[in-house]
């Protein structure tokens, strides 16, 4: 029973899991039907063929966001020989990559402001929000510091204040949302001397990127990184070499919310189905216990009844025998009495005759005496 139910549970779980696998398709159906992106959402296009690795964008970013900036000063070119990543002090960094010719290729890295942000999906206090305008913004007043956003982000962008005790926060590029609200461009874009960074509506940037690829065949790899990756990002990249060579992770179009929608979907199904299965198991168990209890009781009482019927039979037989014995005893006693009486009478008679013989024409007293003795004997015999 135990095993069977566990197997049943396994089967159902498997079924639920399989069904929830299709939840991904459901999510897509949902998104196709009712998700309409803001066509005016803004983004940035980064063109690696134009980037010279001057790092002025890093400096501007630190100023705008009031961060200390990276450890080494901005004109230190040696820094580019190591791979750096964004940190709590520096929301963006530019890295140097070997490229395929004599010239190295540079790429600026920062939060990509995904259209379906993993951080927003993963955050259990809704500290991240994808604004319809484009930027993915962070609310420091809610953050608990669980760091699941850092696990979920496919680009491993968020940084954490590990060395703060009182108000540690997550840090990442904000797409200068406050500046955008004032109609300005992001700090990094404004300061870029070569135009490697282009700010505008995402849709328009995609068109520009496609045009650049078409106008200069061979100059760029025929792929706009960020167009479809993890559901599309608002920061787009053009590169002369394959994007993986610039440290970009290879990702397919499935967004993180889609990856978890199946598992998230199976939770309510369990909440609906498990009460039925488990209450059913308990009810079946209880019924079985009750039935076996009833069966046991009826077996016991049948046995008891059988025993008492046998007893009653025995008792009846014993009573019958006792009655018969009593009858026999009574009959025998009666016979004994009669025999005793007859014997007494005969004795008395003999005594009487003997007395009569002795006395010859005996006197009446002697005869009376003999008659009395006979009566007494009879009485004795009668009494016994």
């Amino acid at each position, binding site marked *: 029973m135990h095993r069977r139910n566990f197997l049943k549970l396994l089967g159902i779980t498997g079924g639920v899991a399989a069904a929830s696998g299709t939840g991904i398709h459901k*999510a897509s159906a*949902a*998104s196709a*039907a*009712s*998700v*309409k*992106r*803001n066509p005016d959402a803004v983004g940035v296009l980064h063109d690696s063929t134009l980037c010279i690795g001057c790092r002025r964008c890093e400096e501007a970013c630190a100023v705008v966001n009031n961060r200390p900036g990276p450890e080494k000063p901005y004109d230190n070119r040696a820094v580019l020989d190591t791979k750096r990543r964004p940190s709590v002090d520096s929301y963006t960094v530019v890295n140097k990559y070997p490229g395929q010719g004599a010239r190295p290729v540079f790429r600026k890295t920062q939060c990509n402001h995904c*259209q*379906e*942000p993993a951080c*927003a*999906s993963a955050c259990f206090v*809704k500290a991240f929000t*994808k604004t*319809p305008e484009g930027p993915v913004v962070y609310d420091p007043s809610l953050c608990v510091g669980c760091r699941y956003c850092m696990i979920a982000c496919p680009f491993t962008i968020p940084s954490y204040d590990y060395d703060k005790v009182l108000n540690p926060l997550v840090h990442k590029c904000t797409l200068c949302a406050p500046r955008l609200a004032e109609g300005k461009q992001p700090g990094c874009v404004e300061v870029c001397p070569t135009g490697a960074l282009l700010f505008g509506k995402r849709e328009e940037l995609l068109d520009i990127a496609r045009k650049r690829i078409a106008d200069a065949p061979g100059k760029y790899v025929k792929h706009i990184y960020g167009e479809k990756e993890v*559901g599309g990002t608002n920061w787009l990249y053009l590169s002369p070499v394959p994007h993986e060579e610039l440290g970009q992770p290879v990702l397919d179009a499935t*967004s993180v*919310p*889609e990856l978890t*929608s199946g598992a*998230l979907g199976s*939770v*309510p199904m369990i*909440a*609906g189905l498990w*009460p*039925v299965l488990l*209450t059913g198991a308990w009810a079946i168990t209880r019924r079985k216990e009750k039935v076996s209890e009833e069966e046991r009781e009826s077996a016991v009482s049948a046995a008891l009844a059988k025993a008492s019927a046998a007893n009653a039979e025995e008792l009846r037989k014993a009573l019958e025998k006792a009655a018969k014995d009593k009858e026999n005893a009574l009959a025998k006693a009666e016979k004994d009495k009669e025999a005793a009486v007859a014997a007494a009478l005969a004795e008395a008679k003999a005594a009487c005759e003997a007395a009569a013989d002795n006395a010859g024409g005996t006197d009446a007293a002697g005869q009376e005496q003999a008659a009395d003795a006979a009566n007494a004997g009879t009485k004795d015999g009668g009494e016994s």
Partner: protein
Amino acid sequence: MEPTTFSSLQDFMLHSKTITYVLMGGGLVGLACFWYFLCGRDKDIKRF
């Protein structure tokens, strides 16, 4: 009747999942009450 549109799947899921969680809580309580109702006529559980 135009269906509500959301600016992202994330937005859609936030909306739908919040409703779902509330319904889950209600559902569990409701199922428990319904079970007691179903057993209402049993000799030993006089609930209703």
